[in-house]
């Protein structure tokens, strides 16, 4: 059981970091950003670049990658989303095109071979009698801290409250003096930064390649559909649900069936409760 507890927490943490950023954009800006997986891949390559080209320590490289992707997120919003905001389908296509361009750019720049980025915390750890990589424990801790901090920011900070107000009613927010264009830019920057953070911690445990954003994007989408589009709480609950379900199936049934869990969850959700667990 301890294995399921720890491995399930690590899977859930990686899903939550990706899904919360994705759902935040939808919840506030009301657009589906299909470039979220590209943010993830670019975050991993940014970290690779800082480590390989500048010899940066992994912890410093993570922070640098987050900063770069936050800026990229704001730029994407300004040039690829903002002009098309009135047409959600156009935003969908624009961000999809952007993700393809990003993948091809990474392919041309770095080649198809996968790359290695160093772990922030190296070595195995034995906890509750379970052998787990130290980076896996770091992932769990970072997800709890970052998502907790985001929650506090949205509910306590002035800018956070502005974001929250915009998510409730963008027109009303504008009427009380909130600059919604700034809010949207901040939301995109936070979303991209969270994708980069996820990639910088998960990437060293997995592999860094140009197409690496696709699967996390599909998982994030699955989590958001199950949790309810736009609901941060729903995404956290769904990330835990899918992360633990996959681990339980892997551990008690077979690894062969684990990847089907999220697809079944999406199907059941769409049939039984199309708005998701916490959707309106």
């Amino acid at each position, binding site marked *: 059981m301890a*294995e399921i507890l720890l491995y399930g927490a690590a899977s859930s943490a990686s899903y939550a970091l990706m899904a919360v950023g994705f759902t935040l954009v939808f919840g506030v800006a009301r657009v589906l950003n299909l470039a979220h997986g590209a943010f993830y891949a670019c975050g991993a390559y940014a970290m690779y670049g800082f480590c390989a080209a500048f010899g940066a320590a992994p912890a410093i490289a993570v922070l640098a990658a987050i900063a770069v992707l936050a800026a990229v997120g704001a730029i994407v919003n300004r040039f690829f989303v903002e002009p098309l905001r009135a047409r959600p389908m156009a935003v969908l296509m624009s961000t999809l095109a952007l993700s393809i361009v990003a993948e091809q750019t990474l392919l041309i720049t770095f080649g198809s*071979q996968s790359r290695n980025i160093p772990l922030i915390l190296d070595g*195995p750890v034995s906890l509750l009698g379970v052998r787990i990589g130290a980076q896996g424990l770091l992932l769990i801790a970072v997800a709890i801290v970052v998502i907790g901090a985001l929650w506090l920011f949205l509910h306590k900070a002035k800018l956070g409250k502005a974001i929250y107000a915009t998510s409730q009613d963008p027109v009303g927010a504008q009427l009380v003096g909130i600059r919604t264009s700034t809010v949207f830019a901040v939301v995109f920057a936070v979303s991209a930064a969270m994708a980069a953070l996820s990639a910088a911690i998960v990437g060293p445990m*997995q592999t860094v390649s140009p197409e690496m954003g696709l699967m996390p994007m599909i998982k994030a989408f699955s989590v958001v559909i199950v949790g309810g589009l736009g609901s941060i709480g729903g995404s956290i609950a769904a990330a835990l649900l899918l992360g633990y379900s996959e681990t339980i199936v892997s*551990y008690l049934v077979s*690894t062969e069936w*684990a990847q089907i869990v999220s697809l079944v969850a999406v199907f059941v959700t769409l049939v039984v409760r199309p708005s998701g667990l916490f959707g309106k």
Partner: protein
Amino acid sequence: MQKTRIKLAIGVFAALSSSVALAQTSDKPVKIGIATAIQLDRGKDTVSAAQMAADEINAAGGLAGRKIELVVADEGKTTNEGVGAINKLISEKVDVVVGGYNSGITLAQLPHLSRAKTIYLGVGASAPAIQDMVEKNYAAYKYIFRVNPLSSIDISKSIGDFIVGKVYGERGFKKVAIVAENAKWARDMIEPAAEIAKAAGVEIVFEEYFDPATPDFAPLFSKVAKSGAQYMIPMLAATPSDLFVKQWYDMAVPVEMGGVDTGSLDADFFQRIGGKSLSETAINYITRAPLTAKTIPWWDEFVSRFGREPQFTAPGAYDAVHVYADAVKRAGSFASDAVVSALENTRHTGVRGTITFDKRHDLVAGPGLVNALWIQWQEGGRRVVIWPKDLATGPMISAPWLKKP
């Protein structure tokens, strides 16, 4: 007397015609088509190694006086791209096609090669189904030969031999785990190997197939460790090897590992994953070892010329060009049917061993011929042959977190 003169004249004419046939096109180059995925290292190395062989032949006066020229077509990662590449080479009227790295793509290409009666020397795909085509319809598919790698039937036998001879015989590991991606090739290869192992007294204590898209192997490794297995045989092709091997190392899974891992065939694999393949053993076909008198000089020349160590497709492509050239010389003709007959009688010592073909036009494995090599990553990224015994270049080591043998 008159009749004798006529016969003599006919004889002289026939002899002259034969030599003119090879010589009359001496101004035209011999076109060797290369069909491979040129974005991948194994594709790049196919081209580089074929160019090495072509340059050697050209420096020695060419093939029947004609220079060899390579025509490269990118067969990409899909069957559509693969068929497109073959059709491009056929339209360029190449004399032979060398290439391949993916069995699915190669199988899709075969009917097109057959229709064009173009000789194909495969250097990267191992599915028995490719040579099944020759067996089932010789007239149509006699142009298809596999120069490299060994067929998966031979690889399966080699896995069984490794488990019995090295893992159990020398290391004394009786309990073995099998973890394979859920694919037909993997089941076809590992199931007969497991039967060989069981017959010799090895216990298969854990066996599981997984989705190649699995991002987290922690639960699987945990189950392997709990099974009591002493050695784990992975079967990886579509699974990202980097991810699998890194997680095995980062978790310090208390089970040694060696099997089929296509990622581990890459020369830069050790460096690419930060040295975490240390002690992993994978079946391979080439390393810098005295397999034949040609191996080490060829390896050094390749590294010196291209600045990288060759992938498993490289020796195949290099040997394939020489095998074709030898066959043309023996046939005295570039005509496909004549060259096929000569190829069937090939006995060529290449960089991996002696190349001969069976009735299915498949590369024959065995002592003195070409063998699968069990190569272990050791300190500094050195690749050491640990099996077969007669080709071993060093002792087997254990993972750093496990006791040494």
